[in-house]
């Protein structure tokens, strides 16, 4: 791999041990994936910051990097963590303490404590064709597909390495030729809400693995619809980007989406969509003691919709309703009065954390209802919950009645 003189000095440790470590990670990836050189990037996003992911081993690794003077040199946002720094959610003290150690280590490295999986809702919006090194699987899909930025499925540590060096190997989706579609999905199933888009993503992710799907006949999806589609694709599968013909910037036509490549064609009818929903449903007991919305973190639009749904209603006394977002969107929702309406109904608007990266299981919940394909996919393994999957309206009804009656 060709290195500039500055990069050689970074590799040789002249800019400090942490930069040397970062370069070792990036050069290993560059060699594996055949990169001819490193390229400059504008921003990085570090993920895997939950105590569940880092554990003690990862925490000590991050603290060691920070202590040895690791400092990011480009804007580097931070992903969701496992606690809400603004209030006591009665999570175990040891959990909170250890989780905050991870947060502190990354902030010492100069990372921005945004604690959110949706930096693009917070003003961190890479432009079309901008090279970035973001981790967080749902954000990787969103920036590549919807914004047309250039990003690979960065691992947590490789995104940090890019933040410390301002560079990433020129490989994978940073190269135009790797961004073309592999399989065409003709969507005839009606997609009417986030849970539908999420189920579509989850169904397709499961069968397509790491390839690039192209969707045809998708009717005017909202930004939130596309976020949920991506979150589904990147949890059941390893998808890093999709095209939606006439919707996403690199797919004005089917031809441009595939760039002359041969492709397979599959249909998504109501049957496939239903199968996607069934695969995300693992509960049998209709009693629901925990409802969670906001994975990825809720947009302001979603909080407004939730305030409307919860206006004048009351969450069941045996059920807990958590709505996940970040500090920025929560502040705005607070100013606009949405938070008060939601919390007057007995729900909690959390910041910084989410269900799968936090540990609400410590509060004794057993059965979760959600409209998130990502939360539904991971919660059985991460939290030990059984899951009901459906629309936000179904979830709010479950919260109010304490049972799933769809």
């Amino acid at each position, binding site marked *: 791999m060709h290195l500039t003189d500055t990069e050689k000095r970074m590799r040789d440790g002249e800019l400090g041990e942490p930069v040397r470590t970062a370069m070792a*990670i990036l050069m*290993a*990836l560059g060699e*594996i994936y055949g990169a001819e050189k490193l390229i400059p990037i504008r921003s990085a996003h570090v*993920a*895997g*910051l*939950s105590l*569940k*992911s*880092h*554990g*003690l*081993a*990862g925490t000590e*690794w991050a603290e060691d990097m920070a202590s040895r003077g690791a400092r990011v040199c480009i804007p580097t946002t931070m*992903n969701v963590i496992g606690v809400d720094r603004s209030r006591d959610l009665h999570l175990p003290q040891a959990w909170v303490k250890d989780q905050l150690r991870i947060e502190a280590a990354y902030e010492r490295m100069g990372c921005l404590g945004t604690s959110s999986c949706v930096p693009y809702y917070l003003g961190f919006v890479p432009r079309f064709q901008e090279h970035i090194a973001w*981790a*967080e*699987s749902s954000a*990787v899909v969103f920036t590549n597909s919807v914004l047309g930025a250039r990003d*690979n*499925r*960065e*691992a*947590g*540590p*490789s*995104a940090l390495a890019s933040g410390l060096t301002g560079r990433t190997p020129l490989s994978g989706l940073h190269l135009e030729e790797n961004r073309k579609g592999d399989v065409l999905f003709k969507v005839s199933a009606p997609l009417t809400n986030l849970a539908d888009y999420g189920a579509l993503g989850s169904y397709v*992710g499961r069968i397509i*693995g*790491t390839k690039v799907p192209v969707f045809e006949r998708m009717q005017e999806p909202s930004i939130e619809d596309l976020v949920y589609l991506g979150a589904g694709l*990147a*949890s*059941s*599968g*390893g998808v890093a980007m999709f095209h939606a013909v006439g919707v996403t910037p690199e797919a004005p036509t089917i031809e441009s989406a595939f760039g002359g490549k041969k492709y397979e064609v599959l249909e998504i009818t109501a049957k496939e969509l239903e199968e996607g929903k069934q*695969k995300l449903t*693992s509960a049998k007991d209709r009693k629901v003691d925990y409802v969670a919305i906001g994975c990825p973190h809720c947009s302001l639009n979603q909080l407004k919709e939730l305030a409307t749904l919860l206006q004048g209603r009351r969450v069941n006394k045996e059920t807990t309703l958590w709505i996940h977002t970040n500090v920025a969107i929560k502040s705005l929702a607070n100013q606009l009065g949405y938070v008060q309406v939601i919390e007057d109904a007995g729900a909690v608007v959390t910041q910084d954390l989410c269900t*799968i990266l936090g540990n609400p299981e410590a509060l004794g919940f057993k059965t979760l209802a959600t409209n998130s394909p990502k939360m539904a*996919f*991971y919660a*059985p*393994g*991460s939290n030990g919950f059984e899951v009901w999957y459906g629309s936000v309206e179904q979830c709010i009804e479950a919260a109010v009645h304490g049972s799933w009656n769809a």
Partner: protein
Amino acid sequence: MAIIVKGRSISKGCAEGEALVCREPIGFNFGIDVSNGVITEYKHELFGKSIKDRILLFPHGKGSTGGSYVVYQLAKNKTGPKAIINMTTETIIAVGAIMGSIPVMDSLEKNPYDLIFDGDHVKVDADHGLVVIEK
């Protein structure tokens, strides 16, 4: 008899042990108990089975990008696989394995699913780009 196959080294090192063959992709973040290496992903092919000390064959990683830290944790806790063989290794697995010094190879010159079966004794020599399967 031993079958020797060449492949691409992703993470250097050399290890041998009993093979565990998985046809599904594996997502390490939220999909495994790091205290014992048991797969916890709902309805996963390996659900309830431990990958600890095995030579683990699976097609590629999937899901959450925090998985690298989980691979690293497994290595530090000594609850992870001794070595990994993939069809194509993606960044998440590669970075975690390099940090945790778990040997990884991919892109073998022959399809590993035709050669490696549960319980086979397999050696992954990622220093020399070789997989040796004892039959």
